[in-house]
């Protein structure tokens, strides 16, 4: 059996041949990431092609040397690096915010976002649910979103507004693309942005656990979901929990499950968290809710806070990026850069905060 006989789409076949994959042996030596890179297709598609190829090999009775690596998805560090570099980020809507996050919210990772009421956690959550849907031809991910609402702050009219804002910005930045892609034009409607958010409204922590358990099955059926947002992970865990050890166990179970889902389905998980006052050594301090052990369970942590009358975001924890802060604004269109922010001021502020903890900002 040759490449030409593989039961795959003609465009994939043409791309394979054009990239120099002339035999099945050559194909079986390739990893999904490399194949995706060579063919400039999605990893998912590359995996599908490899599966077909492996199937063809098996039926022929040939035991391809690297089939095991294809099946188990083992990667070497080079593949991982290029995988990371080719990985897309979800735009937050604010360039300053994207900067400190290293491009945006990362897929395959869990990001926690915390802040006081009214700072814009829900706004950022909705913005991400919209921005993840920006079509690939406009530099987005073209994915869908799952929004798990525990607090009832998800207002459809606001989502509509943010979707309109997102579309008007796309049309502003890509006037040419838009003229060309008429099929894209049909897709750019706020209605379709709303319809591609799977919205779960839950009213108790048992429901929250149930939904997260159900996500695995749901994501299997909806492979185009690129972000899962929980707004907020906290709310139902701040009532009726006398047994704090149990709460910690349940929560770390949830975060572990979400981390697995993020990896397995190549999606971003965003957990919104509340802020609480903590009584330590005779004084009150602001801290994220759910306690110390929870703080270990997210890969990235972004804290939103007021600095005078401006909203700021502070990257508090990240495996690969330095701590930094940046201003952002919540406008009619959604989360955007602050208009008044000038660079010199921002640099000064960054210098002031680098290496420091965010807590001093609130401390007296």
């Amino acid at each position, binding site marked *: 059996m040759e490449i030409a006989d593989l039961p795959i789409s003609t465009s994939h076949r043409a791309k394979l041949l054009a990239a120099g994959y002339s035999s099945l042996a050559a194909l079986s030596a390739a990893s999904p990431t490399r194949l995706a890179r060579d063919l400039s297709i999605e990893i998912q598609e590359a995996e599908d092609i490899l599966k077909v190829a492996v199937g063809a090999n098996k039926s022929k009775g040939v035991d391809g040397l690297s089939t095991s690596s294809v099946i188990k998805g083992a990667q070497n560090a080079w593949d991982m690096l290029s995988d990371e570099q080719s990985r897309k980020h979800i735009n937050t809507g604010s360039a300053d915010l994207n900067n400190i996050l290293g491009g945006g919210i990362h897929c395959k990772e869990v990001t926690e976002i915390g802040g*006081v009421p009214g700072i814009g956690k829900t706004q950022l959550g909705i913005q991400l649910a919209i921005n993840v849907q920006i079509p690939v031809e406009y530099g987005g991910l073209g994915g869908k979103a799952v929004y798990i609402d525990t607090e009832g702050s998800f207002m459809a009219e606001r989502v509509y507004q943010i979707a309109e804002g997102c579309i008007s910005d796309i049309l502003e930045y890509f006037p040419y693309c838009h003229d060309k892609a008429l099929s894209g034009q049909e897709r750019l409607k706020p209605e379709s942005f*709303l319809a591609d958010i799977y919205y779960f409204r839950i009213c108790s922590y*048992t429901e929250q656990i149930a939904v997260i*358990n159900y996500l695995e099955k749901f994501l299997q059926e909806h492979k185009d979901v690129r972000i899962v947002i929980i707004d907020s992970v906290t709310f139902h865990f*701040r009532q009726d929990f006398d047994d704090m050890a149990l709460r910690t166990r349940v929560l770390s179970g949830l975060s572990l499950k979400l981390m697995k889902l993020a990896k397995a389905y190549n999606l971003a998980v965003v957990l919104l968290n509340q802020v609480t006052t903590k009584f330590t050594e005779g004084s009150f301090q602001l801290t994220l809710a759910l306690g110390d052990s929870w703080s270990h369970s997210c890969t990235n942590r972004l804290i939103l806070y007021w600095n005078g009358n401006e909203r700021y975001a502070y990257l508090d924890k990240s495996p690969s990026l330095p701590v930094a802060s940046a201003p952002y604004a919540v406008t009619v269109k959604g989360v955007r850069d602050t208009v008044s922010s000038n660079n010199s001021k921002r640099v000064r502020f960054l210098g002031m905060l680098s290496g420091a903890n965010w807590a001093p900002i609130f401390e007296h």
Partner: protein
Amino acid sequence: MRPAAAAASSRQPSSSSCTHQVPRAENPLLLLPSSRAAKLSLGCPILDRLLSGGLPAASVTEIAGESASGKTQLCLQIALLAPLSPLSASCLFLHSDLPFPLRRLRGLAPKSRPDLLDHVLVAAAHSASDLVSLLSRAQHLLAHPRRLPVRLIVVDSIASLFRADFDASPADLRRRSALFFRISAKLKELAHRHQCVVVVTNQVVDVVEGEQGNTVAWSSGRRVSPALGLAWANCVNTRLFLTRDADGPGGGARRRMKVAFAPHLPERACEFVIRRDGVFGVEPSER
């Protein structure tokens, strides 16, 4: 509804008395106010414009302000408007400040429509646990609608329920905030399941050192925050702040309604007056 979602099964036990068997994904398009949850008008176009049409259903709105800032007046006003609004609903009015302001309610009701009072169901809550049990019983009332279904719940006020019974010790503070979240979760559940408008009034406290993160405003020359601290602030979806300055026209008080935070509204404010026939917004140009 998405068939894929409906086909799955869930074996999770649930403490909630009214849960779906299976988590269901909803389409946000169907949640737009035009298609489902109408808003409750405040009976004044200027105030409605401030709130983009009125108080949203399936959401908890807090009205905070010092005493005599117009909180109760506003609540009585919407209680009487609910039967006439597109919601055509009756109101469940839970009050903790005794006695219930019946005379003011009668004064507000139009003379031609005394029957409007029939649609205001009143109950007194004497403590926080009292309120919790009232809300559990309300669930039955909401599930078995009367002539007009209850789609407006007013709690006036939440702060006075927590005035007593709690010390400032860390253990008591924890117990208190756990109760906030329980009450809020109950209110939000009722709001979501029955598409209710929920309004909770709150008092204010002077801002003390060490209390950070909460909404702050100037009212009557004092720096005040809504009562019950940051924990309660996490429990409401929308916070409206009523404030008062002494430097109004003609020496009278100038009152302002401010959107402190809301998921669907920008921070903005407008002036209002309290007249014999209710609370009304004032156009800025009229000053």
